[in-house]
């Protein structure tokens, strides 16, 4: 049956418009692109960029998730930072696994005290790192040392969850001023500041790019690695752009390259108690290593 538009065209003395076959309703050409096998790209590159995007310092500043976090919030950030560094070194250097298990217990108790919604991000990130560590140690397991893989994974989980526990609850400015209080040169603080700040931003940028790439791609991509390389290349360019913008913004705000140490009192009773606990843990470490 001719449509109204066709009738109008005939009435005006024009030939009706003939639609191509693929545009006629019901006459669409069959087009089903093959499903791309991009599992590796999605599961690895995207997982990696998601992990980078999660490195977000200060995401829970001012919010105490548990009673333990409330107690720790009273401790000066420089002491917490130094304590964390010392404990991480002890866990990494521990030949006797008892100390690593002790710190695993500490990190698990800190996690268990938090509400369910706050456990998942830390547990997921620390779990992924532990899993990757176990995979890297797989050759040792295959050569008859399966406990090595378990030990390294345990250490990785404990250290990552402890570090995330601190960095989620302190702000950037607190970290940089704490580093200055620890007599770290301003140049070194600046490099750390820029690097850690950009890791999260670049992670998010790479994630957005990868998502866009996955959404736009139709059918089988012949060279999936080129796509991944493109994402990484764009991320690098974005890093350059971010660094330039950051530098300009800091200069405009009068930043002269020097960081100020914290102005508030560092040696409070809570801080001293924390220091005593850390020293006690270091003594346990020394005792256990001597007991080997």
């Amino acid at each position, binding site marked *: 049956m001719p449509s109204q538009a066709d009738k109008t065209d005939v009435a005006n003395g024009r030939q009706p418009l003939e639609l191509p076959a693929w545009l006629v309703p019901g006459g669409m050409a069959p087009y089903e692109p093959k499903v791309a096998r991009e599992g590796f790209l999605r599961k690895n590159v995207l997982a990696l960029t998601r992990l980078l995007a999660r490195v977000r310092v200060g995401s829970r500043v001012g919010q105490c998730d548990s009673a333990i976090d409330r107690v720790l919030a009273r401790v000066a950030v420089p002491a917490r930072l130094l304590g964390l560094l010392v404990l991480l070194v002890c866990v990494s250097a521990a030949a*006797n*696994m*008892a100390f690593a*298990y*002790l710190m*695993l*217990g500490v990190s*698990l*108790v800190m*996690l*268990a005290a938090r*509400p*369910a*919604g706050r*456990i*998942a991000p830390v*547990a997921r990130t620390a779990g992924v790192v532990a899993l990757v560590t176990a995979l890297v140690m797989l050759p040792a397991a295959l050569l008859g040392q*399966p*406990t090595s893989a*378990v030990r390294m994974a*345990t250490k990785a989980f404990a250290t990552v969850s402890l570090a995330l526990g601190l960095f989620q609850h302190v702000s950037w400015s607190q970290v940089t001023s704490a580093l200055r209080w620890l007599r770290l040169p301003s140049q070194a603080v600046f490099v750390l500041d820029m690097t850690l700040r950009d890791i999260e931003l670049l992670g998010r940028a790479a994630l957005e790019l990868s998502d866009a790439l996955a959404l736009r791609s139709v059918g089988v991509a012949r060279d999936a690695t080129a796509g991944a390389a493109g994402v990484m290349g764009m991320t690098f360019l974005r890093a350059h752009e971010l660094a330039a913008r950051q530098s300009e913004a800091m200069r405009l705000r009068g930043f002269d390259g020097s960081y100020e140490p914290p102005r508030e009192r560092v040696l409070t009773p809570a801080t001293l108690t924390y220091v005593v606990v850390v020293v006690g843990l270091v003594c346990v470490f020394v005792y*256990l290593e001597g*007991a*080997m």
Partner: protein
Amino acid sequence: MHVPDNYLSPQTDAVAAVAMVGVWAHCAKVVRKQLDQKHLAFLGVAAAFSFLLMMFNVPLPGGTTGHAVGGTLVAVMLGPEAACIAVSVALAVQAVVFGDGGILAFGVNCFNMAFVLPFVGYGIYLLISTRIPGEAGRRVGMAVGSYVGINVAALCAAIEFGIQPALFHDASGAALYCPYPLSVSIPAMMIPHLLVAGVVEAVSTVAIYSFVKSAAPEYLLAEDGSGKPRRSSLVPVAVLMAALVVLTPLGLLAEGDAWGEWDAETLGELAGSVPAGIADGFSFDALMPDYSLAGLPDAVGYMLSAVVGVALLVIVFKLLSGLGRGQAQDGAAARA
């Protein structure tokens, strides 16, 4: 009552594991329906109580040791299906992290302690509490239910041990797995449980339930909300749990092994020889075997094990409750 690997034939382990798959599926379905996020998170606390109770070994007649399980306690607090899931997860943590109970025998241990114990205990509790009205009826029901529950579970374990020599032996008639027949395993398991372990289970069930009911009644599923609303806080429950953790080294005072939980060397000394299935059987290196750590005093290692176990159970069930909330939100979004 934790059956180690290789004491039962792989066939016995497989039958119990297959039976438990159906039980777990049913229990998971019921728990999803019955428990909201708050109660699901509290299930982790209940599982932690069960885990801690299993660490308190008491000396039993005959030179062996035993422990309470807390299966009826969890069943009365949150329902028998929830108790099955909670005790199963506690047993999994014990098997994988602490080497307590076998990996292959996980299904058997769950059948005895996570299925038979809470369901029998809860059934008897219901039977008595509906006939004797009031709080007294509840307490009597709990005490009798938990006592009978742990003894029926011990009887199941004794039967599983005792049928091995009759069913699985070599051409010379020598047992391949547990060498003790029913005439030995049933009295060896039942007398100590009837005399001591059952009483410990009943006393701990009533005591912990009463404490939780007075401190945090809204976390108990059985509480119908009648009467005046009371303040409910988990802080006293956490304090009780911390106290139990600190006291766990008391479990080390009971010397000797539980019946049927010996290592191959000790079994060889007791039975005269080590059956082939045990000597050449499956072995698994746990993270913290026997709740101890090299270099640490036994008491400290035991306490640290308790901390790790309790924290792991609380985390697992909090994550599950978060998952449940996420699914509920997805469902609500889909319905909208």
